[in-house]
């Protein structure tokens, strides 16, 4: 490879940690790594945003928020025209998935999301994805020779170390106004802070009903543990959103995480897989969560809850 374009992700005015992983992924292919920074303060951000391995930083000053996917699409399209990369790399996130496949469609590029491995040999790029709850590894080739847009999964490459700022230049782009009008922004609020808990008991859809949650809340309280939940529990209105662990909830790293009746979907794992010890209880011995747990039990969580209450 000769030229690789990494698109930095900006969240709340800062470059997200996943960007350094995307830089690693691109650098592993060999070649010049050009980091693109798009946003209102792109110039200022560029000064901090140069993980080791970046050859050049290109900034695009754009007025919209970091959630404006149409603006990102136009900015990255201009960057692709300017840099002429063979591979475009960005993190696989809600922000990037909003523009990346649309960009590939507009520019006639190959596209692959949620990539866990990338290689380049003899000018040919190969990507691997982990699908079907991680049970299958799939390999992809890009036979048409068009540049490849690859979105990389968090945790799949070690983040590139921070380094001194690289050479920076600004690219002027004429950005059409976005057709998406943004309104009120809501942030989670509440008196529960799971990130401070050493021990978390988390319930999933296996809990069955709202009434059944009381027993687990009681066990958590008596053990001084936090009460977490998977998303369906919040969607059903059984617990407030502050209890939700996962990609669109909180990310936790307790000493012990006990997953009760949780299958282990990627979006849930994103919020808890770095816990020190993970315990999983599930009636289904095939549940993907067991692949991410240190201690597991094929058991009914209600029966386990009864026994726990008896012991406390």
């Amino acid at each position: 490879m000769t030229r690789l374009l990494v698109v930095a992700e900006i969240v709340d005015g800062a470059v997200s940690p996943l960007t350094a992983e995307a830089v690693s992924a691109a650098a592993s292919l060999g070649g010049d790594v050009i980091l693109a920074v798009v946003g209102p303060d792109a110039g200022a951000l560029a000064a901090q945003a140069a993980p080791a391995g970046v050859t050049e930083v290109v900034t695009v000053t754009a007025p919209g928020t970091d959630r404006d996917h149409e603006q990102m699409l136009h900015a990255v399209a201009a960057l692709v025209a300017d840099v002429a990369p063979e591979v475009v790399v960005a993190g696989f996130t809600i922000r990037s998935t909003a523009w990346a496949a649309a960009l590939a469609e507009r520019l006639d590029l190959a596209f692959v999301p949620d990539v866990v491995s990338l290689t380049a040999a003899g000018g040919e790029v190969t990507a691997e994805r982990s699908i079907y709850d991680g049970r299958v590894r799939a390999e992809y080739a890009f036979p048409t020779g068009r540049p490849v847009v690859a979105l990389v999964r968090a945790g799949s490459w070690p983040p590139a170390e921070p380094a001194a700022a690289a050479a920076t230049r600004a690219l002027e782009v004429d950005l059409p106004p976005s057709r998406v009008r943004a309104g009120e922004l809501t942030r989670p609020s509440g008196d529960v802070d799971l990130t401070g808990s050493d021990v978390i008991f988390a319930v999933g859809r296996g809990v069955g009903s709202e009434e059944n949650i009381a027993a687990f809340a009681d066990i958590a309280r008596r053990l001084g543990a936090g009460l977490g939940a998977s998303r369906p529990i919040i969607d059903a209105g059984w617990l407030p959103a502050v209890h939700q662990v996962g990609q669109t909830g909180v990310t936790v790293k307790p000493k012990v995480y006990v997953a009760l009746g949780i299958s282990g979907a990627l979006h849930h794992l994103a919020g808890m897989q770095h816990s020190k010890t993970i315990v999983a209880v599930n009636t289904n011995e095939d549940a993907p969560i067991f692949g991410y747990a240190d201690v597991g039990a094929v058991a009914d969580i209600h029966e386990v809850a009864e026994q726990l209450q008896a012991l406390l």
Partner: protein
Amino acid sequence: MKVLVCVTQALEVSSYLEFTPDGTAIDAAFVSGSLNEADQNAVEEALALTADDGEVVLVSAGGDEAEEALRAGLTMGAHRALRVALSPAELADSRTVAAALSQAVADEQPTLVLTGVQASDTGGQSTGPALAAAADLPWATVVRSLASDGRTLTARREFEGGVSELVQVDLPALATVQVGANQPRYGTFKDKMRAKKAEIAVLTPVDLPTPRVVLTRMSANQAGGRTVQMVQGGPAEVAARILSIVREVQ
């Protein structure tokens, strides 16, 4: 208002699985399919938006198996369904899928196109935005709480960490519906019978782009990375073990 909902069959695989001889697909004996979870939410959202007046049309790109997803959506109450014929190789590239689906959009001229946020089996989260670009519609992703006055669509977009943003786009537009956005209705037995007999129009797409992505090989994978130690015995042993692990760190 006419809502076109893109639906697909999501596959579940057993923990032991085998692949087809060419190694590019899972042997059909080891998979079962059902209407993708997020697509159920999308169909529900469409039915709610058109409750007073309107039509819900379903479209799925694929072979005969795609009709199962369509019939499941018809059972929920959608009015019509069409299938865009696509081969498995063409389905591997979200761009080809989007190009095929955009022909249904051109034919139907819907006010709103909905997709699910993701296919739960392969989780690409990309067909919606690709289709929006192919059909030249404005779009919003990972939305819930959809509302429309017939000219605009208002919805709440979700982001990582519990952040959400209210967004508005002029119609026609496309939105990808978040899993759990609503409680999908079940059809009755009668609905199911009606869906079983429903005529499904088949559209043969023309001038599809060559897939730029080719799935070359599948292999079985050990998910995770930790080695799990299973607790033997009944619930009492499991409870005792959990307590001892918790007490050790307190």
